[in-house]
């Protein structure tokens, strides 16, 4: 990788709202990193300089496997660079439970960041002490699917893979002989392979709910492929960046206008595609009404073996052992749908993120995320509330829906969380639109 020119930008450009291109000063980190190695540099610098006590990151085991580790070793963080699209993990569950003393930084895809925020609302995480370095996300792939794609579509031995990346809608695998093998994700998905189903309709692509939003969209010109686009979302995010610059771990440049526009455009296209996929997947289910819909749910759940994995893995469920879904359920019952599921569908209807973890681990191959989303989407639409996007808004089932104008803010006022009336609504509506597009402020 060529040496870079001295950046024109100094720490002064780092403020909330700034859009920058950053990179790790260490060439090896840049080499290992997904785009500019900036995320790893930020994490390592935060640990080194004592901004945080620990970093939650992924320890790579193989091309398709990595395990989340909570570490205080800078060296371990430095080893963790690179994006692993075949590691569909949600990191929120790995943060220590409860409000502790430790300050922790972690990389966070939108679903990771949203889960952390939902956990914070339930006092399972202290958001003040958690530094979320957001990663844009176009989707992740289950490693079992990756191996299958390699064997049946790419015709490659999974053991021969030395790396992978996603560029311009193509999933590219690099083999140990130095060759590149690219196939479009659309083509893979037509074959029932590619990204996990929930990722195809995921409605947050840029983690504007994190302290920083990092990605490779909008990295243009000389930096293409070698820099990380970073948007500063909070003061905590600015602190992380300044710290890395001061420690000499990273450098930044203001992003070019063209890059900013490209990023916005790709995001819009991705969200549109997500919406299209959502319609395709959910319209046939929504078309079923009454007994037909009940039958759909019964059939979908008939193979449940009551392992409890869907509950254990769910990053927004903080109920622990003594939970309503388990205490109302007995294997002695012969109900077609167990109360375990019914309670959970309702319980998570205001907080399910559609992160897909439940479905990933279900040994009965039940399309669980779809089922949860069938309950969560109407709630989301009724309250115009996207779980995990803001720490300020509590889960909606904690509030009463006000009838007068149908706006959620009356509910918030009643709960003492907002002071003014719904005259604010047009302004908020604008912000919410921005939030949907991944552009700006959220409610």
């Amino acid at each position, binding site marked *: 990788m060529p040496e870079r020119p001295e950046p024109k930008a100094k720490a002064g450009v780092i403020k909330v709202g700034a859009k920058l291109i950053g990179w790790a000063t260490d060439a090896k980190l840049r080499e290992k990193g997904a785009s500019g190695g900036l995320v790893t540099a930020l994490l390592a610098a935060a640990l080194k300089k004592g901004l945080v006590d620990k970093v939650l990151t992924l320890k790579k085991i193989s091309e398709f496997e990595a395990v989340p*580790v909570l570490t205080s070793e800078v060296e371990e963080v430095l080893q963790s660079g690179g994006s692993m699209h075949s590691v569909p993990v949600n990191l929120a569950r790995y943060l220590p439970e409860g409000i502790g003393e430790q300050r922790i930084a972690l990389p966070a895809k939108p679903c990771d960041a949203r889960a952390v925020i939902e956990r914070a609302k339930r006092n399972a995480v202290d958001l003040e002490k958690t530094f979320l370095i957001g990663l844009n996300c176009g989707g992740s792939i*289950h490693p*079992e699917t990756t191996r299958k794609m390699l064997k049946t579509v790419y015709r490659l031995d999974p*053991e021969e893979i030395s790396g992978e990346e996603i560029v311009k809608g193509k999933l590219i695998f690099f083999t140990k002989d130095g060759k590149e093998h690219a196939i479009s994700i659309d083509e893979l998905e037509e074959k029932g392979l590619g990204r996990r189903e929930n990722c195809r309709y995921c409605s947050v692509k840029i983690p504007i709910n994190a302290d920083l939003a990092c990605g490779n969209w909008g990295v243009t010109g000389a930096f293409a492929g070698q820099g990380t686009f970073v948007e500063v979302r909070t003061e905590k995010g600015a602190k992380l960046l300044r710290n890395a610059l001061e420690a000499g771990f990273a450098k930044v440049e203001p992003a070019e206008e063209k890059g900013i526009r490209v990023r916005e455009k790709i995001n819009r296209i991705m969200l549109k595609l997500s919406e299209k996929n959502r319609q395709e997947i959910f319209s046939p289910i929504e078309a079923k009404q009454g007994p037909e819909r009940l039958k759909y749910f019964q059939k979908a759940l008939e*193979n449940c*073996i009551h392992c409890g*994995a869907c509950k*254990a893995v769910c990053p927004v469920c903080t109920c622990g052992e003594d939970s309503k879904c388990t205490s109302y359920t007995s*294997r002695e019952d012969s109900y077609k749908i167990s109360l375990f599921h019914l309670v959970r569908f309702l319980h998570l209807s205001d907080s399910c993120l559609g992160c897909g973890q439940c479905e990933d681990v279900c040994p009965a191959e039940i399309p669980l995320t779809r089922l949860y989303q069938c309950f969560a989407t109407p709630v989301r639409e009724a309250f115009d509330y996207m779980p995990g996007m803001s720490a300020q808004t509590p889960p909606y089932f904690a509030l009463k829906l006000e009838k007068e104008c149908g706006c959620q803010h009356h509910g918030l006022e009643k709960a003492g969380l907002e002071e003014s009336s719904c005259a604010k609504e047009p302004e908020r509506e604008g912000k919410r639109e921005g939030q949907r597009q991944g552009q700006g402020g959220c409610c």
Partner: protein
Amino acid sequence: MIEEKVYSSICPGCGLGCGLYIREKVEPTGDKTKPELSVDFRKNAPVNAGKLCRFGMNLPIYYGKIPNSKVKGKKSSLKEAVAAAAKALKAASKENMAFLSVGMSTNEEQLAFSALAKTFSCPVETGMEIYAAFPETVHKALGYGTGLEEIEASKQVFLFIDPYVSYPLVLRRVLKAKRKGAKVTAVGPKSLPLADENLSLEPAEYGKSLAPTQASILLSDLHPYSDPTQIKAILELAETSGAKLLFLRPFVNSKGATRLAKHTKQRSFEKLLKALEAGEIKTLFCLDSDLSELSLDPKRVKKALSNLDTLIVQASRSSPLTEFADIVIGAEPFYQKKGSVLNAEGRLLKTGGDSILGFKALAELAKALGKEGLDFAQVQKKAFSSFGLSETDEFKPEKAKPISCGNFELRAGFEKKEKPKNTKKEEQTQKAHFSYNFTPFMWQGLEDDCNFVELNIRLVQKLGLSKGGSLNLKTPDGETQMRFKVSALAEGVVLSEKKIKGLVLPRDEVELSR
């Protein structure tokens, strides 16, 4: 500071050996025998893609406490326990000794245990008497394996197991086959939701009622209570049709242990119990095999074990036997072990840890009894070569082989027990055939949420049972009250996932009343 260690391990709950991570937290000042454990999903594991059944999810409870070494009921060091075991073994008479290891330890430990048993010219018992029921020419076929992927590729799946409760990680493979158009036939007393047809058949009817082809797969299991007549019928079905056959196994290293053992000398748990009761065994050495957990009658086992002069137990987790034994060699828990197991598909899997404490204890013992130089690497190599493999590779299951056993006669079948005597008036009682639906919980002695028997609705109506109530089960050994669940079962069948006193053999007859 609490440190966390992550083990990329496998589930010891059944012969599939599903991949998972065990996260272990140990406080520097905390109780070392009770680390805080949690299970995490290893999505890259080829056996199970990170998915686990209820047993796998309950592993932190299963692992519970690491046993302390003990000599005569008193806590000791491992070294002292090994020395005491060596002394006891030297003093014992080889005529009334027995060594039991059913396959819950690594191949390396199994071979070291065999070497130790050999110094007394004793075999290692695996409880698999079923092998003794078959001529040796058939043993090879009983040992064949094939990858779970073969299920997905089949056009027709014949289930002789209930994958919802036994070997649950097979279920998703059958569902995937079905999604690709395969027909699923379940042979057994219970109607399975995923089956296209459910047939309750006697083994003698398999030949004329089932018509598998070369594109079919037959899924059955081999365990210490398997019915040889049924296994023979399944082998014949596979041979005549050319269908693929996979025998699942109850213990993580059932297959490795069986291959490393001498099949012909195996006794059933029932025969072992009888020998213990008759005082024919005076010294028993159990390697990760708690007879009271494995037996369907734990109380009887406890009584029978009191006839022993010496009970030596090498164990990786605390269990009733570690409380009861004269000498306990406390080894590391399974997930900490370095070593290998051969799963039911024939994948040679790593256990995932880095400790060989248990192996070393066995090697020390063998040395004390004259078998020098058991080196871990060499023993491992020997185990691998006896499987025809050179290294562990979780991505390589065995390739399916055609079954070719020819005509043969069984050497033994099931003993039928006497029927219970009818005491209540005829109209108040109903007779039914009793069957166990074996689950990992049953084999591993872990409590499950299954305090009920299953009956079909007609039997419930005939007995006049009320919802939420219980029923009386009269067995050859006495009466038991049980709660019940209404299930889609064949006529006249009672099914249980919980051990019931006195009900040992499949298809025992029981008397039911309100």
